[in-house]
């Protein structure tokens, strides 16, 4: 125990640095994932075959191949085509694009779960297609998609650990470095594991629950009821 405390005193600051980078990667990737999910989810519901196909192709590619390979493609292969991204940027873009593909299905499912009558009454009230979607359908879909998004964000946080493999100095990167120099594997990876767990349980889950409460109140339901 004492040995572990010494370890923390020695390497704590590096875990903190790594955690900050992991949180940055998570937040940026999450924003990107939500944006992509919204666009792709809506495109998947388009009347136009071409628009639908673009979304289907995107979703298939990013769900059907591994995140690690997507990350390597974005970081190592794109430069061959003249697109060079900094490793930090490449990291969250890969994670965001990958989770965005899963999110697109969540968005699509939530939108089609809104009862048909809501679309129809929005037409009867002569709302424009844009307002039908943004003011009537999406707010209701949002409520249905919050719980699955909670899971996706946790997946996304865990997925960011891979960015260490392109040398983004995130939590996983620091843990590997510390392990490499000290050979204290249990301490190094144990600490990282605990921090990942705490981020998921203390940051993501409570935020999502709070959001769900806010939405429930908007729907005139009492929280939990």
């Amino acid at each position, binding site marked *: 125990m004492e040995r572990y405390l010494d370890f923390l005193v020695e390497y704590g600051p590096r875990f903190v640095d790594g955690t900050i980078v992991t949180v940055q990667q998570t937040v940026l990737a999450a924003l990107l994932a939500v944006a992509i999910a919204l666009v792709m989810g809506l495109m998947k519901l388009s009347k136009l075959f071409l628009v639908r196909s673009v979304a289907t192709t995107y979703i298939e590619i990013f769900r059907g191949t591994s995140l690690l390979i997507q990350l390597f493609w974005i970081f190592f292969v794109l430069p061959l085509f003249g697109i060079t991204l900094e490793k930090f940027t490449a990291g969250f873009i890969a994670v965001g694009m990958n989770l965005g593909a899963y999110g697109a299905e969540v968005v699509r499912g939530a939108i089609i779960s809104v009862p048909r009558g809501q679309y129809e009454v929005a*037409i009867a009230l*002569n709302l424009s297609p844009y307002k039908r979607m943004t003011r009537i359908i999406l707010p209701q879909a949002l409520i249905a998609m919050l719980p699955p998004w909670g899971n996706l964000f946790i997946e996304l946080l865990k997925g960011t650990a891979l960015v260490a493999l392109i040398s983004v100095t995130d939590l996983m990167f620091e843990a590997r470095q510390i392990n490499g120099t000290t050979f204290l594997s249990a301490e190094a990876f144990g600490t990282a594991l605990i921090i990942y767990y705490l981020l998921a349980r203390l940051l993501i889950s409570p935020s999502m629950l709070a959001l769900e409460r806010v939405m429930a109140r908007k729907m005139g339901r009492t929280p939990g009821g």
Partner: protein
Amino acid sequence: MDNDTHPIRLRETDPPAVRFSQVSKHYGDLTVLDSLDLDIAANEIVSIIGPSGSGKTTVLRVLMTLEPIDDGVIYLYGQPLTHMERGGILVQSSDAHLRKMRSDIGMVFQHFNLFPHMTVIENCMEAPVQALGLSKDEARERSMDLLTMVGIADKAGQHPSRLSGGQQQRVAIARALAMRPKVMLFDEVTSALDPEVIGEVLNVIRQLAGEHDLTMIIVTHQMGFAREISDRVCFFYEGRIAEQGPPDQLIGNPQNERTRMFLSAVLDAD
């Protein structure tokens, strides 16, 4: 019977509020509206009755432009609704044309379809603000007047989930009226309600019939109500009007065998 026996003669200069001209609608092999002709005069109150599956809801849905028709033309105040003129011929309506035309039509649905994420007053204000461009103050004032008329002003700040079915349906009526439609469509607006609250909704419709310059098309299974409120009752059978006439005649003394069978079945059930 067909349009030759239409009770209200229409001059060409005075187009009907609604005209179905040879309108057909199919779902696959099923013909739901079968070359339907139907004229409804401005301010006329028409009830539509008929057996399940006879096309009553479909008539309202195609008029509300929720469904396209396969054949024929629907006109609103002499203007084509389902079609528009392009170089002297009628072509399918564009979305822009539909949006312009359907602003004269309001519809109340069997299952209310209130917006669950908005309060009662927000439900009523939404379309006036977002579709008509009214200011929030104007929309609120208009909505409060209507909520007062339907007797539910005290619930303005509540969410729909806190209201009874009868109250929700009255809000839905106020919400539709807030758009100031000229033609109101009611699709079995009391059939999802508990018996004890049906009266409060029917009273609102009675009041509309008495006070407002509204053309109303009412699909209903309540023969007593249809008889009392309507200028004319249409009996639908297999996507056509099998018989129509003034309520006392059609309900009191039907000529068509099918009408008689239908009426005796529903009146027995009551």
